[in-house]
């Protein structure tokens, strides 16, 4: 038995209604309990801001395309190099660091759970191998279904149960966590070098539209009673004028689940553009946020863009090709048979580019215009909008109007008329930030039930103690202190163990992978479906028996089981 007592913590725990109280947190064997004995290890938080461990509900840190980003960019590795010391392996990389680099940096920022935003089922084993080398966070993987042939056939046939059954089989086979749709339908078109441009456009041969795929899978998702909702990367990412497509996609979502949203839209900054071309691009954060405000069944994340160098990587293959044609820099693409695609290019977001300045403003506008912080979570779509190490700056921008004004002064001329940010006075408070960086994520992902995102007895003891006194800091003025505090915890506690102190990693760590299995009736088990098996072995280049990810790949495995209602 190991016990830990975090004393004098200034706790904000939104899921339990704690908006800032000095209290002690008792921990036994990795879980938060009512009290511990006198022999417990003690951490004196000295009134510092103490939050549940951070959760990133959309990041790209593990798997085929992330690794390809590293592989193709030795120049990115020249930054962020650290030597092996103590329990820490050497690290390299700025926008796509090594797995250890990601893990240590997230840990230093108090993040203890992360969701990899896109995993191709066929290459799931790779994602899990990298999870195992990401020792200090619990991990989940969004599983891509945007161009899945059997799913599209079921959608075309109007057979939502079969679609659900295919999802259930695949998630369990590849130990995935949730349904991810990236540019639904577009990935199949990209197999021929084409794309879809509207949610009503038909996918060649399969005769389904993005809207039908989205609608069917939202219903399938709820029938399977999966912890998370459908996780959507809308069509037309990064295209001026795409906000209508985004709102159209939101309008497809019925309200089916009382505990969380029914549709999660990710990196919405990239999907809230007005105008008709790069020349007249402008912010449409207002109508998008307005739609979110009147639809409790929607949750979004910001997809904030931050200035500087980074790498874009997404399962949206055609979008990356368009970016390549724009920048003429290096471009990688990876299409995955029967399933999905992906692309990678390096980018530099510049304050001298009006387009980039508008993008920067839109993310912040979304967070400030969405009234309920539970509906707009903080993320950069790491590394697409910028590496996650920029989160502290984003927090400060949201908390300080003054900081935003300082930044607005540095933007390219011509930006202000295209954005609404200068007129927004709202300053988020500590509680809002706690919601947007952990509690909201736990609710949106449906992992509160396994003890994530809060600090009441019964919660898993993932705790972040930041070296900042809420009572002595005015974030509106002292935004530099806010940035500094969120960059490096005084302590990060993971599964009841102190794992980082002032940014130094203390233990090697072992990750835990959370995945979902919906139990379906035997006649809907695709593992026994002759047609499914026949087509599998005919069109895939691996045998169906070699497809599932073996248990051995999960060092610690947490399966969230549900009884499907099919």
């Amino acid at each position, binding site marked *: 038995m190991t016990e830990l007592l975090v004393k004098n913590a200034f706790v904000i725990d939104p899921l339990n209604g704690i908006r800032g109280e000095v209290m002690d947190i008792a921990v036994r064997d990795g879980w938060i309990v009512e009290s511990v004995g006198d022999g417990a290890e003690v951490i004196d938080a000295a009134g510092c801001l103490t939050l549940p461990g951070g959760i990133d509900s959309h990041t790209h840190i593990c798997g085929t395309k992330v690794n390809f980003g590293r592989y193709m*960019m030795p120049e990115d590795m020249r930054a962020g190099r650290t030597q092996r010391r103590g329990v820490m392996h050497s690290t390299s990389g700025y926008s796509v660091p090594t797995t250890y680099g990601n893990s240590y940096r997230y840990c230093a920022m108090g993040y203890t759970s992360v969701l990899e935003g896109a995993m191709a089922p066929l290459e799931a084993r790779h994602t899990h191998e990298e999870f195992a080398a990401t020792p200090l966070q619990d991990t989940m993987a969004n599983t891509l279904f945007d161009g899945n042939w059997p799913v599209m056939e079921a959608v075309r046939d109007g057979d939502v149960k079969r679609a659900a059954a295919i999802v259930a089989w695949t998630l369990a086979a590849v130990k995935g966590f949730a349904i991810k749709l990236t540019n639904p339908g577009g990935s199949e078109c990209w197999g021929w070098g084409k794309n879809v441009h509207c949610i009503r456009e038909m996918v060649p041969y399969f005769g389904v539209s993005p809207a039908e795929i989205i609608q069917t899978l939202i219903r399938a998702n709820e029938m399977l009673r999966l912890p998370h909702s459908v996780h959507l990367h809308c069509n037309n990412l990064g295209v001026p004028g795409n906000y209508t497509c985004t709102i159209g996609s939101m309008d497809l979502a019925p309200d089916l689940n009382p505990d969380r949203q029914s549709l999660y839209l990710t990196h919405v900054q990239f999907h809230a553009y007005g105008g008709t071309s790069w020349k007249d691009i402008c912010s449409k954060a207002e109508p998008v946020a307005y739609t979110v405000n009147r639809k409790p069944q929607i949750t979004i994340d910001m997809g904030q863009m931050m200035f500087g160098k980074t790498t874009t990587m997404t399962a949206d293959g055609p979008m990356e090709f368009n970016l390549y044609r724009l920048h003429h820099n290096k471009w990688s*693409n990876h*299409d995955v048979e029967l399933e999905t695609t992906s692309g990678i*290019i390096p980018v530099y977001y510049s304050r001298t580019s009006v387009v980039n300045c508008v993008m920067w403003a839109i993310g912040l506008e979304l967070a400030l215009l969405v009234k309920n912080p539970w509906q707009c979570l903080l993320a950069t779509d790491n590394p697409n909008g910028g590496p996650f190490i920029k989160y502290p700056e984003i927090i400060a921008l949201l908390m300080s109007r003054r900081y935003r004004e300082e930044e607005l002064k540095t933007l390219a001329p011509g930006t202000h008329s295209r954005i609404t940010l200068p007129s927004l006075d709202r300053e988020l408070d500590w509680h809002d930030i706690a919601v947007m960086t952990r509690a909201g994520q736990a609710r949106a992902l449906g992992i509160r039930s396994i003890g994530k995102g809060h600090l009441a007895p019964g919660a898993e003891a993932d705790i972040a103690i930041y070296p900042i006194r809420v009572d002595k800091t005015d974030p509106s003025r002292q935004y530099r202190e806010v940035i500094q505090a969120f960059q490096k915890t005084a302590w990060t506690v993971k599964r009841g163990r102190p794992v980082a102190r002032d940014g130094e990693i203390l233990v090697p760590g072992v990750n835990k992978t959370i995945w979902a299995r919906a139990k379906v009736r035997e006649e809907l088990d695709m593992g026994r479906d002759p047609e499914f098996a026949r087509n599998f072995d005919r069109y895939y280049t691996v045998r169906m028996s070699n497809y599932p990810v073996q248990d051995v790949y999960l060092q610690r495995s947490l399966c969230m089981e549900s009884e499907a209602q099919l």
Partner: protein
Amino acid sequence: MIVRDVICPFCACLCDDLDVHVEDGRVTGVDNACDLGSHKFMTDHRMKGPVRRTASGWEEIPLEEAIRETAELLEAAERPLLYGWSGTCGEAQSAGVHLAELVGGVIDATTSVCHGPSILAIQEVGHPGCTLGQVKNRADVVVYWGCNPQHAHPRHLSRYTTYADGFFVRNAFKERKVIVADIRGTDSTNLADEFIRLQPGGDYAVLGALRAIVRGKGDVVPPEVAGVSREQLYRIADLCKTAKYGAFFFGMGLTQTAGKYKNIRNAIELVDELSRHTKWTLTPMRGHFNVYGFNEVCTWMTGYPYAVDFARGMAFYNPGETTAVDILARKECDMCLVVASDPAAHFPAEAVEHLASIPVVQLDPFPNLTTAFARIQIPVAVSGIDADGTAYRMDGVPLRLHRVLDRGYPDDAGILLEITRRITGGGSR
């Protein structure tokens, strides 16, 4: 006993439909495999136990002693080279990278004498790729450039291209055009609808000319480029542009000739250019079954796919400087750990000579030519036959190798972890 759907640990096609017959702890037959794969399963020339070279011959030594001595040699070395890795599974590769980091060594894989140049090219311009099923299901034009799949990847054509029917290509043999570029006729060029016969070393120029033609700037191209007529180049460019889906495969004919990675860069940029007209993808024909796996593992652990120098406690990468052939030819390393490869057979003699003057430890199931230079050899299980683990196909698809029998050998990963424990002082104490 028949083990079904076994994955072949020979080449990076990783065919996963083998049926392996096992009787009395031996493989007695293999169905579906090519000649190369069958031979690997059936080979029975394993070394029995660890051996050490003595003044006059070889002596058998206990495993324990072999491991301890290896650990001591690694620890004492000021510039150890840890080389090989493509013939073992990801778990061993991962242990190897950690070991290299621990001892401040250089870790390099057979990649450097195989598709290393492809990686250097990808690092300049990226890689428009796909999994092989995309090719099987969609491609109507396939290019094999500087490779001879009939000999190096015998089932590539039947599983993924010429003879592989797919969803949108119902009769592949009829519907799929094959273009082969080589300097000599081979069993693969015999199958070509178009054979581009070029002069040795002419790849860069020919690929550049094709790029110019596809861009509509063919007027600058002289009537003949490296032995290829302008007419044929125009014909090829047209065939490629009007394809519904084109797939470009290439091999050592590009990576090992003058210009090395610049040849591949030109091929990639040709594919990029064609992608403005129709769908094209490109795939390096990786050799060893898990050479790509090493690149993946090494990349997520260090940021670089191969040739990583940990001398300064952090990763430094510069092929040409931190690659095995260069380090050996310059006599830099003072110890060499060879895992799952045979540099003595595959490196130029000048590089091999240095192995004779430093301590060499080899982990390999079989006696091979590097054995001749080994102070110690530890025989291990064969990944994919009597050891399981992860391997990455040439297109990046990760598969779990089967263990079809148990012959009592330790696996590479286990030995490497044990060596690591010795050095960090954990383990046996």
